[in-house]
């Protein structure tokens, strides 16, 4: 590997212009020769690029590591979902940062919040518009069972009344860590489900 250490610049405090002059001059003095180009790629890989595995394992790995969520939130759980997407928790570590505003491009639906009966047809329609394969994560007490509103006249007592749910994440609301735990469980579920087994096709809600 080329040695870069001679290019590390010293820090100094004092006259800023004088410091800058010292820095530039010292960099010029230490940069008289070009750095060697990386050559680690030369000669190929030791095993000749051949890996033995199963299609299920490869596709499961690829699918589970690039899940694109559907961009919508129903209630306060959506704020935890947004926090999970933000830079502090950073959902892009899981290849999931691309929240799609169109169901046609989304792989999974995070039902984040209270689902009312008035909203239910819209959510079911979005689910129907998503392309197979697709997965659903119910986030928070309301999505799981209706939560504190489960006996209300206007709230769906659990989104599994209208959607098949793959993972339930309890909490009111769950913290981003909880959501991530559910997402990683979903990753394992996708990995185990396999590509060749086919997908379950639900009857349409017409």
């Amino acid at each position, binding site marked *: 590997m080329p040695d870069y250490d001679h290019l590390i610049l010293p820090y100094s405090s004092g006259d800023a212009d004088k410091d800058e002059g010292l820095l530039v001059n010292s960099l010029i003095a230490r940069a008289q020769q070009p750095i060697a180009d990386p050559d680690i790629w030369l000669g190929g890989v030791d095993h000749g690029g051949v890996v033995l595995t199963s299609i299920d394992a490869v596709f499961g790995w690829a699918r589970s590591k690039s899940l694109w969520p559907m961009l919508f939130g129903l209630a306060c759980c959506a704020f935890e979902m947004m926090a999970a997407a933000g830079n502090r928790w950073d959902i892009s570590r899981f290849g999931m940062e691309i929240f799609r505003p169109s169901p046609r491009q989304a792989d999974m639906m995070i039902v984040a919040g209270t689902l009312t*009966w*008035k909203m239910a047809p819209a959510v079911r329609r979005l689910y129907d518009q998503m392309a197979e394969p697709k997965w659903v994560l119910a986030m928070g007490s309301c999505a799981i069972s209706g939560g504190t509103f489960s006996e209300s*006249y*206007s709230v769906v007592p659990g989104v599994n009344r209208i959607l098949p749910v793959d993972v339930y994440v309890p909490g009111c609301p769950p913290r981003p860590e909880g959501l991530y735990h559910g997402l990683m469980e979903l990753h394992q579920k996708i990995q185990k489900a396999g590509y060749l087994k086919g997908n379950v096709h639900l009857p349409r809600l017409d």
Partner: protein
Amino acid sequence: MGLKALAGTEVAAKVGAKAPGSVVSSDQNSILVKSSALAGVMRFLKESPEFDFNYLNNVTAVDNLDHFEVVYNLTSMKKKHTLCVKARVPGRQNPEIASIAALWHGADFQEREIYDLMGIRFVGHPNLKRIALWDGFNGHPLRKDFL
């Protein structure tokens, strides 16, 4: 802000002088208006230069089982004063009161909400249908005898 809450008794005296028999009772905080006279009283409160209530803060309703009470909170932006007006609506089968959506357009959605959740009909409302619940919902859920 410095908004001054007008004494209901003083407002009631002036409204009563303008429209005799329209005020049922009054106290320090509010005036209780006869429901049949509500539209005229509200128009007077809005258009008279003395009161000049050009802003309707909110409309809401209370279920007292033997009658409903519709509550209006008014503010004058120029005169910097406020007033609470109430009106009682008897009956549970078909309670009715005049709409004030033509006076303050902000009342439009709020009267629809009261119609939706309390079942009070606002006569003269331009588009009186359910706003929060879906068409065909059975009952009015904020009534005390719901469920």
